Structures are given as C-alpha cells and as structure tokens.
C-alpha cells in the first residue's frame, strides 16, 4: 500500500489516479507514501490511523502486487515524496495530526508526487521498491528534498521585500552549501550573506556574460551571450 490517506487511512496502489483529486472517501489531500518494505518495521512507530491496513507480511506482499497490478510503472518522481523508510515515517508523522498544523510543504509535496505519478514515462516500479533497501544516504537525501512550489515561485519573481524571509536569521538547510557552490563556480561575485557582496572586478570585466539578477537566497541569473546569439541568428 504505497499511498495512504492520512485522514481516513484508505490505501491506494502506487500509480493510482484515484487520489489525484483528494481521497474519494474523506476528501483528505494528505497522503503518506509507504514503500512495501517499510510496513514491517515502522507501522507500529508511526501509529496507523484507524482503519489502516495491518502490518503483516501479507500486506507487504499485497502492496507489491497492487503496485504492479494497475500498470507496470511506478514513478521515480512519485518516489521523491517518499524518502527511505526511516525518513518517510519521520517526515510524514505530522500528517498523523493532520488537522493540527499541517505544513504546506508536506501538503504540496504530496500532491505533486501524486500528480507526477501519472507520468507515463517511468521505469518498472516493482523493481524499485525491491531495491530500495540498498539505497544510500545520498539517494535518500535527493529523494526527500523536493523543491517546494513555494520556493520555485519565489525564485522566479522579483522579491517583494515585505515577504523576504530573513535568511540570515533563519538559515535554511542547504543554503550555505549552495552559496559555497555558487561562489566556487562564479568568483566574480562572492555572496558573503544576503545584502553583503564582494566583487571581483577583473572577473566581472573579463566575463562575457554578465549577471543580471541576484536572488534573495544567493542564487543568481546570468545572461549568456550564446543563448541569444543562437536564437537570433
């Protein structure tokens, strides 16, 4: 039972389209993804909502069967919302108390995953589920860190100062690493912290492309001369 509604506990096979517009039973729009291997170990800790499937070996087997049945595809993209079994249970735990303070990110990530599960170009899902125990931490991390629509939206528009998060006070995980990586790649501007920059004038002068927009979180947009050259010629 890869997907489970966190409100009523109804389960859906992987790749199911039923859940795309919310749970048909209770209308809930939060689902947790539980790979087949996870049920044995973690069902107890997570605390199944009422009416959920028992955590017997049979259910795991059923889940694999169910996953394979509707189609041969399961979705790497869908899987992104579901990290390793361990992380999965931790991440999704807030969903158990769904009505308390549901995080938008969990919510949107889940619905994204649900939406992308529809994508037809995916590999065989059964195999993936079986392999998941071998997954290393890097993969697990990559799976769990889905860019939220909120973040995408923020990066794509001009930053409204009123909404600007005080990144200095609340550093988001990964921002520092990202900043370092960018600094290594583009030494023309070193972003010390938001609002503090060091500029390498020679580099800026020597570069063909130039920076046209710095983003709040340390990213920046550059204009590549080749990009418009190809378009125009």
């Amino acid at each position: 039972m890869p997907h489970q509604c966190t409100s009523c506990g109804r389960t859906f096979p992987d790749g199911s389209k039923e859940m795309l517009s919310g749970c048909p039973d209770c209308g809930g729009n939060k689902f947790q993804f539980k790979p087949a291997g996870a049920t044995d170990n973690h069902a107890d800790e997570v605390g199944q909502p009422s009416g959920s499937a028992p955590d017997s070996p049979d259910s795991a087997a059923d889940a694999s069967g169910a996953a394979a049945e509707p189609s041969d595809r399961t979705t790497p993209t869908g899987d992104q919302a579901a990290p390793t079994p361990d992380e999965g249970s931790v991440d999704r735990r807030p969903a158990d108390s769904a009505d308390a303070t549901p995080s938008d990110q969990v919510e949107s990530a889940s619905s994204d995953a649900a939406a992308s599960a529809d994508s037809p170009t995916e590999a065989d899902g059964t195999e993936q589920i079986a392999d998941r125990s071998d997954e290393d931490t890097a993969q697990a991390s990559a799976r769990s860190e889905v860019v939220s629509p909120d973040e995408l939206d923020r990066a794509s528009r001009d930053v409204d100062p009123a909404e600007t998060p005080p990144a200095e006070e609340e550093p988001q995980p990964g921002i520092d690493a990202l900043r370092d990586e960018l600094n290594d790649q583009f030494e023309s501007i070193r972003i010390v912290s938001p609002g503090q920059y060091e500029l390498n004038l020679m580099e800026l002068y020597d570069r063909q492309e130039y920076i046209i927009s710095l983003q709040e979180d340390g990213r920046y947009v550059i204009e590549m001369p080749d990009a418009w050259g190809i378009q125009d010629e």
Partner: protein
Amino acid sequence: MGLLTNLRDSISRVTDGLFAADEPKRIGIYGPPNAGKTTLANRIARDWTGDAVGPESHIPHETRRARRKENVEIERNGRKVTIDIVDTPGVTTKVDYKEFLDHDMEKDDAVRRSREATEGVAEAMHWLREDVDGVIYVLDSTTDPFTQVNTMLIGIIESQDLPALILANKTDLPGSDVQQIANAFPQHETIPLSALEGDNMDEVYTKIAEYFG
C-alpha cells in the same frame, strides 16, 4: 529586456563602426560610489539639453542601473561634439547593506539596495568592456584616490586604449586636494571641478571636446 538591449547595442556597435565619423561617441562616467558621477551627468545634460539624467543623493549607490543620455551636443570654439553620456553605478569591491542603515533605511530596503548595487556594478563592468568609446573618471577630491578600485579601473581603461579624462570633483568642499589625484595618476590630465556648484565646467567641456570629439 537584457536581450533587446544587447541586440540594440550590438547593432549600434556595428553602425558605430560603419559611420564612425557621424555617430556620437558613447562616454561612460565611471568612478567609485558617491564621487558625484550623477551630479556631473546631470550638470552636463542640463547645460546642453535641458534635461536631467537621474536623481542625485548623498546615499551611496543611488545609481544602480546605468542611465544614458543620448545626443548631447557640446559646442566648443565653434566646433560641435555629439556624445552619449552613460552614467554608471559606482564601482566598488564590496557592497554591504549595513552602510545604508546609517541613512535611516530599513534593513529590507538596505539589503535590496545592496543587491541592486551589486548588479549595477556587474553591469557597469560589462559596459566598460563592451559599450563605451571613452571614459570620464570622476573622483571625490576629498578622499584618498589610491584605492584598489581606482587603480584597477584606470588600468583596464588604459589597457583598452580608451580616451580617459580624470576629474577631481567636489572642489567646493574644504578637504579637497586636487594635487593628490594628479599625483596618483600622473599619466593622465586631471581637471578640477565642482559639478554641484558648476565650478570650472568650461574647462571640463573644452577637455571633453578635445578628448572625445
């Protein structure tokens, strides 16, 4: 926007090459922040066209996008020189929002200004490489001219073989020391002026006609 600007600029570069004698030279006004670049640009534009180029301010990095005033005709000794003036953001190696906090600015505004100023410097450096035919380098004569930025920019301008005029601005202020600037860049002629008061602008225009005509 950038794409169109680029396209327009590259077209105008080509035409510049074809009609070099007729097209106005594009003169970039460069220098560190708060040297008086915009005040000078406004002074020149007002004297010869009646318009201004952009707002002036005591707060550094008031100009965060290059601004252009085209077809400024300057007449000197019966000779007419047409130039496009490009007022550029102050070039610096460090931008810190904290320096704006002293000017009664909220932190959010200061951070944004800082970001825009950094983009402006990047743009100004890009223009220096691609888009100017000559440089008016403005320095505040009350401050030490021996800085990394000044040395580097003058070096770049010289390496490009661009005609450059060095102006020692703010001679109306008590601490003004024109000689210090002349000593710092002995290979160039240094013209004293007060763009704010309009002092010695005649000589400035004569030199502009001479250097960029």
